[in-house]
């Protein structure tokens, strides 16, 4: 038996405002603000932070673009470890890294750095922005090379068409419809407005009815406008430390109980941390339902083995929904419901706050904006800390975040107790 006692906890959390091109400060300034807030929330000083890591890549860049290299837009469109180091100082920094997958992986890296003794307090952040002055993510290539040779001549580019392929396969295979999705999307907006943070709550506190969803313009069928998260500018940050440090924190901590991750490559299901992200070929099985489900089951079996828990033990789950259908793939993949059952599982209040398994209680990406999984990580942490306000799930002992597409995803379980 492995020792399942948590070694590391999230001690602090910080946010900038979430804006959409209407911020009076740069993304870099947002990141500095969120990072300072997380450190302060943990009740420590900057000089005590001796580890840093982030996933820095731009949400508005899928390859095939003429986007400027990250180095030239540091502090404007990205916030690198070097940028944060420069602006916060960290006189005692011992460990720094940046990784190739979403913020969930950054959190896992920070956990391992602390557990392995590379540092004591690690700061993790995710800053997301997008290029202003052009239509979001537009590209205009007349020549394409590499993997793009097999997709861009067909106009197959960006998130919506690819995730629409995943969605259509699911809809067709199991009998789901947009009406099933509508109740789920309407709920995530309601949760987002309860939380008070994120794009919609901070800028446009508008409920989204089922009728609004059904009438929305199509982006890439069956995905409409509200199946896609809205691009925003902002930053979330987390301060991690050894589990024993939780006793010095003035509020609850979120102990990291365990995690698992996976990757769908051209050779099929893999569970090691491959260089996923931007390097993978475009026709891997990442946008095919059946391989996603197979990978989800693998991640799940590793996750439940690592934590000694089962899906029934999870009080609330935050499942990636940068495009809505992904949340359903996690529901089925992790075993919260059976194959082909997610679209019915999310009906009848079952996944609402107060329901059998509340999910995305802060609205996820759809509710907070295109923060690339930070909403899911944040909310799982707030719930485990017992700081979720009106959204607080009763007796939230174990909370889960799956803050990326399943095909390149991670699942992390937090605990309100060190166990």
């Amino acid at each position, binding site marked *: 038996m492995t020792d399942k006692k948590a070694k590391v906890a999230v001690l602090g959390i910080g946010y900038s405002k979430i804006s959409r091109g209407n911020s009076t400060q740069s993304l870099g300034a947002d990141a500095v603000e969120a990072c300072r807030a997380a450190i302060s929330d943990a009740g420590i000083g900057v000089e005590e932070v001796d580890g840093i890591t982030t996933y820095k890549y731009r949400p508005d860049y899928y390859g095939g673009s003429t986007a400027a290299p990250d180095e030239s837009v540091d502090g404007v469109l990205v916030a690198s470890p070097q940028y944060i180091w420069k602006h916060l100082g960290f006189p005692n920094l011992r460990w720094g890294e940046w990784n190739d997958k979403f913020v969930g992986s950054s959190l896992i890296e920070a956990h391992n750095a602390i557990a392995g003794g590379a540092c004591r307090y690690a700061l993790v952040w995710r800053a997301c922005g997008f290029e202003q002055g052009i*239509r*979001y*993510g*537009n*590209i*205009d*290539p*007349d*020549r*394409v*090379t*590499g*993997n*793009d*040779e*097999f*997709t*861009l*001549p*067909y*106009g*197959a*580019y*960006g998130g*919506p*068409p690819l995730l*629409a*392929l*995943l*969605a*259509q*396969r699911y809809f*067709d*295979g199991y009998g789901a419809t947009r009406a099933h999705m509508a109740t789920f999307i309407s709920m995530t907006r309601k949760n987002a407005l309860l939380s008070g943070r994120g794009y919609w709550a901070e800028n446009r506190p508008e409920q989204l009815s089922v009728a609004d969803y059904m009438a929305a*313009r*199509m*982006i*890439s*069928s*069956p*995905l409409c406008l509200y199946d896609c998260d809205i691009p925003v500018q902002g930053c979330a940050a987390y301060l991690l430390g050894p589990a024993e440090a939780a006793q010095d924190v003035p509020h609850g901590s979120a102990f990291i109980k365990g995690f698992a991750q996976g990757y769908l*490559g*051209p*050779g*099929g299901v893999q569970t090691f941390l491959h260089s996923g992200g931007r390097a993978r*070929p*475009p*026709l891997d*099985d990442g*946008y*095919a*339902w059946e*391989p996603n489900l197979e990978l989800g089951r693998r991640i799940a079996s590793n996750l439940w083995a690592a934590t000694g828990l089962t899906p029934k033990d999870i009080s609330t789950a935050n499942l990636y929904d940068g495009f809505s259908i992904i949340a359903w793939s996690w529901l089925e993949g992790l075993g919260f419901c059976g194959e082909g059952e997610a679209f019915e599982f999310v009906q009848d209040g079952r996944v609402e706050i107060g329901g059998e398994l509340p999910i995305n209680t802060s609205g996820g990406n759809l509710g907070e904006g295109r923060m690339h999984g930070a909403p899911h990580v944040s909310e799982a942490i707030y719930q485990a800390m017992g700081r979720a306000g009106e959204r607080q799930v009763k007796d939230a002992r174990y909370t889960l975040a799956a803050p990326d597409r399943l095909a390149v995803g991670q699942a992390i379980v937090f605990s309100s107790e060190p166990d």
Partner: protein
Amino acid sequence: MSNTIESAARPIPVPSDLTRPYWDAAKEHRLDIQRCQECSYFIHVPLLRCPRCDSAALAYEPVSGNGTIYSYTSVHDTRVKSFQAIGPFIVAHVELVEQLGLKITCNLSGTDPADVKIGAPVEVIFLPIGEGMVLPDFKLATLAETGGTHD
């Protein structure tokens, strides 16, 4: 037809040493797919090593050009500028008959969107897209051709 996929100004592929045989075959109206010479696994898009057995002994081999629609979407709002001038267009993944999961992107151009269904049999067609380049695409298989079997 000025508002359909046929009139889209498609980005032109610039082949590399790795991908040139695919495009050269298309110019001759043949669909060639990379295949591992050690374990016979078909690979698309092309790679430097077999993702199954890690062999570097890869070669292009002709395939039947027959498959089924694995999934599809009607794209109404695209980030690719040259496609913004046209109306909604289909992007589909076709699964080739040669191997489970062997998928290829296409537009099913010329096919009535109402006829686009998951599982429908399709066959390859070839579209000239300028500068001497030819793009493989697919259309619904004709009845006579759906009865065929392939290795």
